[in-house]
């Protein structure tokens, strides 16, 4: 397994990532690509990059992709999967994309139990637009739209996507992981693999929340960013499996005949 790390996955193009040094997107991209290779599903994969720093993901993933408008990835994914059930569909989303503008689309895709996989990058800010508050921004965290720190009374609380989504009966597999250490990266890969396998087996909606460093907007070095995830972020967003119904088999319809 460790050999793989040094070769480019088939599902990644030969392009240099434009992400900032120490950015979690690069790692997440690579892991998703490796999983696609290992599960041998590249031929059927259709991915959906978001509006966000990962907007150019189609330059990196060597799989079919269609870009969605900001937040609408899970709706687009629903359309693809329903129209073409053989495909393996993943929506790649940031925290603004998933938990702010696209919370309705994301929540309802999950609630319908769409047989898709969501890769959710939680970096506690809006990376692309220059570091504004995200729904997942920590209390007291300074961003360009919370210049004196996020204030719970005025700006609300960090949105805990895994906690909330795991309560929806439509959700089959949901895990929160992080890519701030080699061990975390291994775990993340396992989680992503399990999520895709859940979809391949037709078991329903899977979501992997990845706590991911954004050194640029956190104004920390890459190393300190990884530390901040351990010290601060994972306290608010504890890691772990929030839901695993993959053992229950395929869901059956309950509508009246």
């Amino acid at each position, binding site marked *: 397994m460790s050999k793989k790390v040094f070769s480019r996955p088939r599902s990644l193009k030969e392009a240099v990532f434009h992400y900032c040094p120490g950015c979690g997107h690069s790692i997440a991209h690579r892991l998703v690509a490796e999983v696609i290779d290992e599960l041998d599903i590249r031929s059927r994969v259709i991915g959906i990059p978001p*509006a966000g720093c990962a907007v150019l993901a189609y330059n990196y993933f060597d799989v079919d992709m269609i870009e969605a*408008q900001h937040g609408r990835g899970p709706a687009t994914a629903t359309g693809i999967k329903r129209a073409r059930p053989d495909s393996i569909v993943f929506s790649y989303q940031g925290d603004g994309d998933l938990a702010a503008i696209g919370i309705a689309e994301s929540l309802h895709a999950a609630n319908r139990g769409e047989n898709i996989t969501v890769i959710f990058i939680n970096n506690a800010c809006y990376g692309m637009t*220059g570091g504004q508050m995200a729904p997942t921004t920590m209390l007291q965290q300074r961003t*360009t*739209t919370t*210049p004196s720190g996020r204030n719970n009374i005025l700006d609300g609380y960090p949105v805990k996507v895994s906690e909330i989504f795991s309560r929806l009966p439509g959700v089959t597999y949901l895990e929160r992981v992080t890519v701030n250490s080699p061990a975390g990266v291994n775990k993340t890969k396992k989680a992503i693999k399990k999520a895709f396998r859940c979809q391949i087996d037709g078991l329903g909606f899977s979501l992997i929340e990845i706590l991911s460093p954004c050194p640029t907007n956190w104004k920390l070095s890459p190393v300190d960013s990884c530390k901040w995830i351990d010290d601060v972020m994972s306290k608010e967003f504890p890691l772990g499996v929030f839901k695993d119904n993959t053992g229950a088999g395929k869901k059956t319809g309950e509508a009246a005949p």
Partner: protein
Amino acid sequence: MNKVLMSGNNIIGEAAIRSGCRFYAGYPITPQNELTEYMAEHMREAPGGVFIQSESEIAAIHMIIGASATGARVMTSSSSPGISLKQEGISSMAACELPGVIVNIMRGGPGLGNIRPAQGDYFQATRGGGHGDYRTIVFGPATCQELADLTMSAYDLADKYRTPVMILADGMMGQMMEPVIFKKPKPRHYNENFILKGAGSGKSKFIRGLILDAIDMEEHNWKLERKYQVIKARETLHEEHRTEDAKLVIVAYGTAARIAKGAIKRLRDNGMQVGLFRPITLWPFPEAELRALSARVKKFLVFEMSTGQMLDDVRLALQGYADIEFHGRPGGVVPTPSELANVIARHYKETGK
């Protein structure tokens, strides 16, 4: 009065706050983030000032609708894709006759497009944009000073006609800094009767857009239309630059008009009699003023950072009384004055003399 050097986005924010805007909701999008960030920093300093980073542009516009109904001066801002999302709410504001200022710092489109300055949202802005029979007053500022002045005017007109007003600028206007002087805003006149504050012990009132009876709805449509006709008759603004002796006149707004001025200067230096007609209100379009010019000028060149949208309004205004040419650079390209000068010179030579 003090001159200050500020970016267009910040100027809009400052002018709004000085005009008494006390409620801002917005969602980050480039190239207007500095406006949202300015409001985040300064709105809460103003007494009663509310800043909300909303979960989407749809939420933002509906938040300002609520605040406007309670009598607050309100603003939301975005850039092209986000303005598309706001259309539902803008249509509601027109229907419910709620004042408010909406800022569009345009970028390249359609779709996600890019974040470069462009003028592709002219149709959307001037035709209403959302569903139903309505119009939005639209300002097309071309300097940072105008951003300040027109933001203040936008609040006056929004209140006066109880209607949404849009500031339509582009990424370059939003990002650019120029010296600006903030004038004293006019005092606000807004009829208390239109404000919801709870019935207290008096009669209750409601604000609505839903009118199920067709005859009633028709009457409401005509009432709005009469208002739009008054706005058309009274509120058009435009600038003419060196048109006195012009044989060819460029029609351009916003950033495109700035570039046109640069081109005109070069051409004038070479003895070509070229002028500029710059609409400042894009709706209402200064139709009569442009038509009046066609008594003297027989050739117009419309220049836009789009594939040709205002062009339609120029055609409607000139009604065939003059020749109309078009030059467009869509997609976020900002052409240079010298490029434009070459294009104009070509057309100028065709004017004969």
